[in-house]
């Protein structure tokens, strides 16, 4: 299937056909929308590659220089030679940097099937040309106007001849040749210089105003002398009454041939703002990673017995977010980030009940039991892939509704890609170097100029995403002091020590890769596979595990002891083992968090522990076991004192009663005015009955300073344990990707094979059996011939070309390799569909052998 090397391709389809598999794969990888669904042949692929939506998407993914190259091509003649293009990009004076970078940009455009043809006949895909060429409605970013040819198309022949004469050219027969003569004059640098030398100063001033665009100007019906001078010579051409335009050729002359005022052939470098020791960075990041875990646990603990309600429109109310922020002791945007992270990691979800609330999922319990490093890895992986962007919370959507945390409308498809890109840029810096945020943003804007709606401000979505990425990475402990940590580096599969400037150096290494025949410039894989795309899930899992391994030794080891002090505090000088932390959390109130935790014992907290079913002796034993120092006397006394009173009063649920062996105490209660609301009545010397429900009664008595215990119907003390609230099994929200995912190697190979096969079917020259066929017509043979040819093909193992009518009566052509023929059916490998199929013989209209190649 070698192509005709001697003839240049005449269409994009032909150009594609001439490309090898590797180069097609590169195209499909960068434009995955082209193979959903898989096109039947290369013609269809080419057509699809030329649709407006697909071209627009491809253009949006170009970097600034490639885009500028495409823009230059759009204002160049069609086709244009490489030298013309170079002239437009580098100007008459030439520019070595541009000349060096241009082949790479052209190769990019070729790879993306936006550009085809040999170097002497470069052609931009028509749709791209239409999108980028200047028109009155869409001014080109180049600031150039229409060409002389276009601008004079509606002009009267007499007027054109006048202009030609005024410009000092001989008159011609028709308007077309007149315009051509004018074009020739305007593009001739020396003659043009002579013409302009005679221009009045005011006229030159006008030209200099229009030269960098916009090229349109207003004139009165009776223009001034200097404008008249320009109009007479066609240096300004009328477009509509009162409006004139500077023709493209004139502008290019004045710009010394440059299509762009400023070309940016090289990506702006990411500048380090500060350099820290690698160890400091890793330790800080690990500290932050631990804080992240602690914060999430705290959040989930807060929501453990039923979290905040779900708004009817979905999401968390502003008040609940505020409350959460206060509980976590962070700002609201940071609280929103933690909530969203827990959600993205599948740790919280709506419980789906009638009064919908947020609650922990069963996955949370699973997560909680993992070692800390793996817990972090779980979060980090969810963060990398999430399309939900907490940074948007508090903003408004297109319909002016407030965007709420965990609510709808927070998905931004570009988020994972931007996140990945930002981290890759950080990975490009030397270890320990923290980047200057602005330089990162500048680099991102260079890489995707069209996606950034606002090229000089910082407010476009990608820049905001990048900023959020930088701050979120710090919160999550992917970076420390702004620099990427070792575990952060491992997280997204970056090599341990990558040198800076990977994008620029790749051009040289690509030369060895397969080149597309017919393309003079190599179509190589100049982008490393991981440059823009996040890793596929399997590789991501490996990378995440590697990150967890790196992180694990940096995390503080949980301690099994605390320090008890006489001021009724306990200090845990580091993270505590979970059972210890859980128990202390019940027995004491947390007073301060951070590297250490300070707990304070209060009568209420001790009572809470007693309520949870612990006996005073348990508590003493617990404290003695876990304290490095003797238990201070006041603490021991506090526990005994609370225990002494705890359970002294017992309250029953059988329409609520209070009983107590001490009838003086009951007298006291009855005498207390605050008890009036409880409507107590003495049943026996030691028993009071209440009309209120037990819960209110308990609260009331506690409010009066007693420590009653609830009692069951059997007279046992009811133990109140915190019961964890869980949703039914929930899956984490799927990331919403922008377009189809990049295909993997298997899919790519299959797709290319299918397209090639379809293309073979459509274009392969074939020899007919029986009477000759007109090209493209379905083969027709008698059923006896069909059977014989099939059987022969089974023996030789050759592929044949068949006409086939399916059950719906639709006719198609296929290339099949018959495997066996029996019972009126042919079993064959269908090259078109890339699978083994069975065809009823009676539906095969004819068969032909494929031509020898």
């Amino acid at each position, binding site marked *: 299937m070698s192509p005709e090397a001697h003839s240049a391709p005449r269409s994009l389809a032909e150009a594609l056909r001439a490309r090898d598999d590797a180069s097609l794969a590169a195209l499909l990888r960068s434009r995955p929308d082209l193979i959903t669904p898989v096109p039947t042949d290369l013609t269809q692929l080419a057509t699809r590659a030329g649709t407006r939506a697909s071209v627009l998407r491809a253009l949006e993914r170009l970097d600034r220089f490639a885009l500028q190259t495409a823009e230059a091509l759009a204002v160049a003649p069609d086709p244009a030679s490489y030298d013309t293009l170079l002239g437009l990009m580098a100007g008459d004076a030439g520019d070595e940097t541009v000349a060096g970078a241009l082949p790479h940009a052209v190769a990019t455009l070729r790879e993306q099937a936006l550009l085809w043809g040999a170097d002497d006949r470069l052609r931009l895909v028509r749709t791209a040309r239409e999108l980028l060429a200047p028109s009155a409605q869409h001014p080109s970013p180049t600031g150039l106007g229409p060409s002389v040819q276009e601008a004079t198309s509606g002009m009267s022949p007499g007027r054109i001849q006048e202009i030609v004469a005024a410009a000092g050219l001989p008159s011609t027969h028709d308007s077309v040749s007149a315009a051509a003569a004018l074009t020739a004059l305007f593009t001739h640098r020396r003659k043009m210089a002579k013409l302009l030398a005679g221009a009045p100063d005011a006229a030159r001033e006008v030209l200099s105003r229009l030269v960098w665009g916009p090229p349109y100007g207003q004139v009165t019906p009776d223009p001034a002398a200097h404008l008249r001078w320009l109009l007479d010579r066609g240096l300004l051409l009328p477009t509509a009454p009162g409006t004139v335009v500077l023709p493209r050729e004139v502008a290019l002359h004045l710009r010394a041939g440059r299509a762009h005022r400023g070309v940016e052939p090289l990506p702006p470098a990411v500048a380090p703002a500060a350099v820290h020791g690698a160890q*400091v960075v890793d330790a800080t990041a690990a500290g932050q990673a631990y804080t992240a875990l602690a914060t999430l646990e705290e959040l989930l603990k807060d929501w453990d017995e039923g979290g905040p309600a779900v708004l009817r429109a979905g999401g968390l109310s502003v008040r609940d977010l505020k409350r959460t922020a206060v509980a976590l002791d962070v700002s609201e945007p940071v609280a929103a980030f933690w909530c969203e992270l827990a959600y993205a990691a599948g740790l919280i979800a709506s419980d789906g009940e009638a009064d919908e609330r947020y609650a922990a999922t069963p996955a949370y319990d699973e997560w909680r039991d993992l070692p800390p490093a793996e817990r972090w890895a779980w979060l980090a992986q969810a963060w990398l892939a999430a399309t939900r962007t907490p940074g948007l919370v508090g903003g408004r959507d297109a319909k002016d509704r407030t965007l709420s945390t965990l609510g709808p409308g927070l998905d931004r498809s570009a988020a994972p890609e931007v996140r990945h890109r930002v981290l890759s840029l950080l990975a490009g810096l030397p270890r320990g170097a923290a980047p200057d945020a602005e330089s990162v943003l500048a680099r991102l804007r260079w890489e995707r100029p069209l996606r950034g709606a606002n090229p000089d401000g910082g407010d476009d979505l990608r820049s905001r995403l990048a900023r959020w990425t930088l701050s979120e990475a710090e919160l999550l402990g992917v970076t420390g002091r702004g620099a990427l940590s070792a575990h952060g580096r491992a997280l997204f599969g970056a090599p341990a020590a990558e040198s800076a400037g990977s994008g620029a150096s790749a051009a040289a290494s690509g030369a060895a890769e397969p080149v597309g025949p017919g393309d003079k410039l190599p179509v190589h894989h100049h982008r490393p596979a991981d440059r823009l795309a996040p890793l596929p899930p399997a590789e991501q899992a490996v990378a995440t595990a590697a990150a967890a391994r790196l992180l694990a030794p940096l995390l503080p080891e949980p301690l099994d002891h605390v320090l008890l002090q*006489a*001021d009724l505090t306990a200090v845990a000088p580091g993270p505590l083992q979970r059972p210890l932390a859980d128990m202390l959390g019940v027995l004491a109130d947390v007073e*301060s968090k*951070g590297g250490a935790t300070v707990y304070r014992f209060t009568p209420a907290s001790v009572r809470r522990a007693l309520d949870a079913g612990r006996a005073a002796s348990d508590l003493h034993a617990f404290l003695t076991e876990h304290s490095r120092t003797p238990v*201070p006397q006041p603490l021991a006394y506090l526990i005994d004192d609370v225990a002494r009173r705890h359970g002294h009063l017992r309250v029953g649920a059988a329409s609520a009663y209070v009983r107590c062996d001490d009838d*003086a105490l009951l007298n006291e209660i009855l005498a*207390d005015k605050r008890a009036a609301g409880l409507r107590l009545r003495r049943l026996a010397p030691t028993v009071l009955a209440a009309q209120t429900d037990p819960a209110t009664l308990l609260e009331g008595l506690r409010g009066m300073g007693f420590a009653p215990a609830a009692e069951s119907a059997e007279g046992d003390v009811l133990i109140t344990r915190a019961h964890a609230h869980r949703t039914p099994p929930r899956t984490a929200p799927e990331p919403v990707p922008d377009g189809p995912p990049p295909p993997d190697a298997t899919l790519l190979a299959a797709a290319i094979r299918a397209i090639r096969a379809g293309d073979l079917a459509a274009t392969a020259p074939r020899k007919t059996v029986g009477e000759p066929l007109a090209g493209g017509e379905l083969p027709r043979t008698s059923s006896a011939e069909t059977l014989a040819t099939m059987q022969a093909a089974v023996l030789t193992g050759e592929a044949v070309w068949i006409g086939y009518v399916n059950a719906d009566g639709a006719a198609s052509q296929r290339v099949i390799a018959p495997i066996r023929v029996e019972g009126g059916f042919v079993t064959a490998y269908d090259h078109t569909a890339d699978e083994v199929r069975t065809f009823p013989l009676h539906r095969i209209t004819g068969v032909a052998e494929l031509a020898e190649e």
Partner: protein
Amino acid sequence: MFGQAQPSERQPRVNGPLIVQSDKTLLLEVDHERADDCRRAIAPFAELERAPEHIHTYRVTPLGLWNARAAGHDAEQVVDALVQYSRYPVPHALLVDIAETMDRYGRLTLTKHPAHGLVLSTTDRPVLEEVLKSRRIAPLVGARIDADTVVVHPSERGQIKQTLLKLGWPAEDLAGYVDGEAHPIELLEEGWALRPYQKQAVENFWHGGSGVVVLPCGAGKTLVGAGSMAQAKSTTLILVTNTVSARQWKHELVKRTSLTEDEIGEYSGTRKEIRPVTIATYQVLTTRRKGVYPHLELFDSRDWGLIVYDEVHLLPAPVFKFTADLQARRRLGLTATLVREDGRESDVFSLIGPKRFDAPWKEIEAQGYIAPADCVEVRVNLTDSERLAYATAETEEKYRFCATTDTKRKVTQALVRRFAGQQILVIGQYIDQLDELGEHLNAPVIKGETSNAQREKLFDAFREGEISVLVVSKVANFSIDLPEATVAIQVSGTFGSRQEEAQRLGRVLRPKADGHQAHFYSVVARDTIDQDFAAHRQRFLAEQGYAYRIVDADEILAEG
């Protein structure tokens, strides 16, 4: 002590004595070998909040950081100290925040301009623009001299400092002080000498110009005042809490300095003397008649060179207002704690000055300058009838009911019996309770209505050992020197005042001639708000390292 317990390869990473918490508190492990170095490194910028036996808590506040800046420390030193001693990585955000906060101090300075007088100048023009836009600053400043300088009305020197602090841009006051009217004052160090920490405090204060010296009760704050006066050698105005305290100051000054009785005046409700050294009470200064403060002229009556504020944490709000107008004079604040129940610490900072010296109680106790104390809380049970009365009492009467329970009297008697022969103070809030106690203990009672002459007489008798038990009301809370009291029994107090508890403990902390231990008993009614108040009162002392033991009244009564 944690790192050493499990020697492993992890140890080098977790070895600092300091843990930085996310709420900007610093936990210092006192038993760590580097704890002392660390304490010295963080003391300039972190306020000691609690000092119990194992882990001390310091807090980093903007005021603390600015105090450090005022003392000449920069952000780099602070960050270094944290990073160097921290056991875990310090959050980057916290370091950035500290650097930014410290950077705010000194952007604005108050200086004396040779031509224009008092001016506010800046090293950072946008900051000046920002503060000048504030509506509260506008009336305090005059003409703009140049882009970086603006004239300040000399009378508003205090006001503008207060306002700038509220705006978060504290100004450094380099405008200097007037010398005041000179008056010779010398310390007479005969048979005694200033203790090293007192010398240090005087030196720090004098070097800084104005500011606050924080020393525990009984650590000799009066001598720091006397030392400062000897440095200033100028007329001095001393502001104290009450008349008894004023006499005490006078007595001490006559004894320790070259000043004579005639040189020292007392300006109080009873006497209105203005002498080269004048001691005035807060009460007389804040007396208000027909909406004006008639005794304000005291501040202008002489060209004072130094103003001493005793017990700064009790400084009444109007005094702040007067102080704002005295910014050109040297000001010395003396206190046991910067904690104010009304939260006006920032006014102390901006009007009197930054903290110049600070020493924790336990440290001074360790040096032997104050007596070690044994603090005990005795829990008594209310009788059944008392419980009933307590339950039915009005809210505002409840404390009185439980605080004056009869059981307390029995316990007090038992305690007095146990310490028979030692000098015992019984301190209480309610006069009838004290009268009853005085009767049962056969001891004199000093209360508000006791005349000053009578008080002095009783105190002298107590000092001489003629009386061994003295029952006092809250009039004795402050500044009365009772050197040989070794046991204090507190039967009731002013609700939950931590301040009062510290002062009362101070009564027994003066070093004892025979070096034996002081005892502080607090008698508390169990299961009542008395107990809640007691917990609150004790918190300050527990945080200072005074561990309370708790015993049941029955134990005391049984041995008695």
